[in-house]
């Protein structure tokens, strides 16, 4: 351990992952010596093929893999909030109760905050619905509202917009930026949308073969990220797609 | 063996009941008789009674063991079994039936179609047998009387609870079973037309005892209270016999919920109680039962006299005598 320990304690990173190894059952390691640091307030997006271990990494950071074999060093802030890949609402609790579950504020204030968060994700009036009376995208938005109503130091989001249409997704981007502005959490977000990664994150990493295969800062930008110069955006996009799937036909990438 | 340091087994019974003495008694019929008789029975006791609706062998033994009962009213067998269990008990008073031949507790009911004219007909029959109960002991006595061995018949172990015996008879699963009371009446009513009969066995099945843990009578206070209770108990026996109409209406019909006919049958077949002042004869008969059971059921020998506290005999006997006289 001596090799890393010294360095770890002095870094200002909010998240430090060193030499992370995780494997399920007897198979090959899903994560195989992964290193990652996230600075306080930094927004990192992860790309990676289906099954490459993105959720496994997030679960390791959230401390949810007690029983998974592996080694490595993981340091995270105390106050972590997770948006799961499935929306993971308690089926027996109504929408608002799901949103305020475990909220630190006193009940009345928490419910107020929850109601506001629900309104923000476009679900005002659905507070008393049961989760399974919602459409897929609505469930995902409730799960998002649950995270937005809190102020974590680290937000781990596993494809938080996967079930949303393009325009609802844009609105959710705004909400996320809002949260960033207010509380400056570090963010690690899994997404399958390369453009989304570029638009939202400060840094994009590609997970492959159990390690970070590529790591790129996104073009420097001011508050209004979307108006970035399309030039560097294009190049980065191509590079990321290349890293994701070296064997695919480049002609197709354009149409995506 | 009175390590309690209390009243010696042969000491005279004390008559003074200290204040605050209580007896926990499981004797529902006496309780009811006291209630109905009013002043006719001297129930002006110097002690408190805690009534419990507990009767029969297993229940009273369990209650004795738990220390929640001082006296119980049972038939012949429980005291013997209690002794075999290791529970030290004493019988304080006994009642028999003066006209026991005409008023047996049980008769031998036969399944429809089974000819049963005398005890010899039992040979080869399937007979219901409940080892720990009075009915079980009776079956053994009957077999001995008939000169039969356990191997000459087929003893079918069946609990005598509820209507199991009549049902098993009706179903033809057994040939003979000791049945008594309203159950017999109903069985014969129902299945008599199909050929069900009953046979009187001609043996004594009439004993009834008041008994309790020996420790109770070693306590002078309780012994004195017991003395008063035994006297009243004897009077109650007589009173019940002499007031069949009240007993029928207030006890059988109102309290126990019997129909008029059933109650009438019970009153009609009620025997005249015999409450001896001298228990010697009863002890001898008990010894006989003990010997039989010990041999047939492979239990240790027991001296029946050790089970009886003969000091109470005269108390009960005299009280009964007075009650008869007061008529």
């Amino acid at each position, binding site marked *: 351990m001596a090799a890393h320990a010294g360095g770890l304690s002095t870094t200002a990173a909010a998240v430090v992952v060193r030499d992370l190894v995780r494997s399920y059952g007897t198979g090959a390691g899903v994560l195989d010596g992964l290193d990652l640091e996230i600075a306080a307030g930094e927004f990192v997006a992860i790309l990676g093929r289906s099954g490459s271990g993105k959720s496994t990494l997030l679960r390791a950071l*959230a*401390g*949810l893999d007690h029983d998974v074999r592996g080694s490595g060093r993981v340091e995270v802030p105390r106050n*972590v*909030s*997770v948006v*799961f890949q*499935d929306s*993971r609402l*308690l*089926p*027996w*609790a109504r929408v608002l*109760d799901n949103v305020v*579950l*475990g909220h630190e504020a006193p009940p009345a204030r928490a419910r107020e905050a929850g109601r506001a968060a629900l309104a923000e994700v476009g679900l005002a009036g659905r507070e008393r619905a*049961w*989760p*399974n009376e919602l459409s897929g995208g609505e469930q995902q938005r409730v799960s998002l509202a649950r995270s937005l109503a809190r102020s974590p130091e680290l937000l781990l989001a596993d494809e938080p917009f996967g079930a949303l249409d393009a325009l609802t997704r844009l609105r959710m981007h705004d909400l996320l930026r809002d949260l960033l502005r207010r509380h400056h959490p570090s963010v690690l977000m899994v997404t399958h949308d390369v453009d989304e990664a570029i638009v939202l994150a400060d840094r994009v990493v590609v997970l492959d073969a159990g390690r970070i295969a590529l790591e790129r800062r996104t073009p420097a930008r001011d508050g209004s990220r979307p108006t970035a110069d399309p030039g560097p955006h294009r190049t980065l996009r191509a590079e990321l797609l290349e890293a994701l799937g070296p064997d695919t036909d480049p002609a197709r990438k354009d149409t995506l | 063996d009175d390590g309690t340091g209390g009243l010696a087994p042969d000491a005279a019974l004390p008559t003074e009941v200290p204040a605050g003495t209580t007896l926990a008694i*499981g004797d529902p019929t006496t309780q009811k008789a006291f209630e109905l008789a009013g002043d006719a029975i001297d129930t002006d006791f110097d002690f408190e009674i805690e009534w*419990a*609706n*507990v009767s029969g062998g297993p*229940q009273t033994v*369990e*209650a004795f*063991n*738990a*220390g*929640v*009962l001082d006296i119980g009213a049972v038939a012949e067998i429980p005291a013997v079994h209690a002794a075999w269990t290791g529970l030290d008990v004493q019988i304080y008073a006994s009642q028999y039936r003066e006209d026991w031949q005409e008023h047996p507790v049980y008769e031998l009911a036969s399944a429809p179609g089974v000819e049963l004219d005398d005890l010899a007909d039992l040979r080869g029959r399937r007979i219901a047998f409940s080892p720990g109960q009075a009915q079980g002991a009776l079956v053994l006595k009957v077999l001995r009387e008939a000169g039969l061995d356990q191997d000459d018949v087929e003893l079918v172990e069946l609990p005598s*609870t*509820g*209507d199991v015996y*009549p*049902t098993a008879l*009706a179903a033809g699963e057994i040939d003979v079973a000791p049945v008594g*009371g*309203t*159950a017999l*009446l*109903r*069985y014969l009513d*129902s*299945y008599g037309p199909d050929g069900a009969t009953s046979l009187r066995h001609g043996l004594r099945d009439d004993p009834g005892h008041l008994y309790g843990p020996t420790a109770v009578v070693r306590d002078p206070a309780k012994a004195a209270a017991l003395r008063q209770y035994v006297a009243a108990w004897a009077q109650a026996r007589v009173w019940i016999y002499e007031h069949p109409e009240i007993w029928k209406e207030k006890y059988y019909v109102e309290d*126990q*919920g*019997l*129909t008029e006919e*059933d109650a009438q049958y019970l009153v009609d077949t009620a025997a005249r109680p015999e409450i001896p002042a001298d228990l010697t004869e009863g002890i001898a008969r008990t010894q006989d039962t003990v010997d039989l059971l010990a041999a047939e059921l492979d239990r240790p020998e027991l001296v029946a006299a050790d089970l009886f506290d003969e000091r109470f005999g005269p108390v009960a006997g005299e009280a009964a005598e007075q009650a008869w006289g007061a008529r």
Partner: protein
Amino acid sequence: MGCAVTAVVQAGRVTAPGRATAHQAVDVRPRVRRLGLRKPVPLAAGSGVVLLLAVWTAGSATGLIDPRVLSAPWTVVTTGVDLAVDGRLVENLAVSLGRAAQGLAWGVLAGVTLALLSGLSRLGEALLDGPIQVKRAVPNLALLPLLILWFGIGEEMKVVTIALGVFIPIYIHTHNGLRSIDKRYVELAETLRLDRRRFVTRVVLPGALPGFLLGLRFAVTGSLLALVVVEQVNGTAGIGYMMELARTYGQTEVIVVGLVVYGVLGYTADQAVRLLQRRALTWRRTLED
């Protein structure tokens, strides 16, 4: 309104008969093989019981059922009315229901508490679960002497005995229910940093509720059935006492009245719990819906 439209089923195309209410209200849906259940027909639920009664009545009327074995329904009714009129039935029932309710309350409390203790910690499980399983395996009849020893022969012993019978299904079902809660919700609770109390009230209890309610169905009938046993000991009233008395006097028709009362009580109580089940579990979408 009411102008029925016949089914239009063409080769390779599935439609279903609909009911045209007006120009707009055609309702033609694909006809698919339904594997789930249809909506229940109101009152149909009772038809099995009604059939049972009918068979009993018919059997008794035609003499196929020997009245000496099973009293005829009318005998039972008249006996029941008699018992009701002279007040004994109602009085006994009231005493018994009071006892059963008390035992039920204590048993449910104990069962849930123990299930939580043993279900949510390995220590609790190690200490509690074994003895409870042993208790469950041991015949109640054999425990009676011990219970008399500890609790006497009065009301206390009766309530304790009922509670001891009741707590077993509650414990097992609640324990099993909470142990079956989806791991994903536990993970959610962990990331939301719920404290134990909230974890129990928001996740464990509602998650174990279906199991608990099933246990309650057993507990309710169990509490009633236990009356038969406990009221044999020093009973002076109660439905169990009434039946025991009838048994000693061989009053078949009173026993059958007791059985009918038991059937009615048990069936009603069970239906009540199932209603509660449906109410409390509206959030579920199951084969039944």
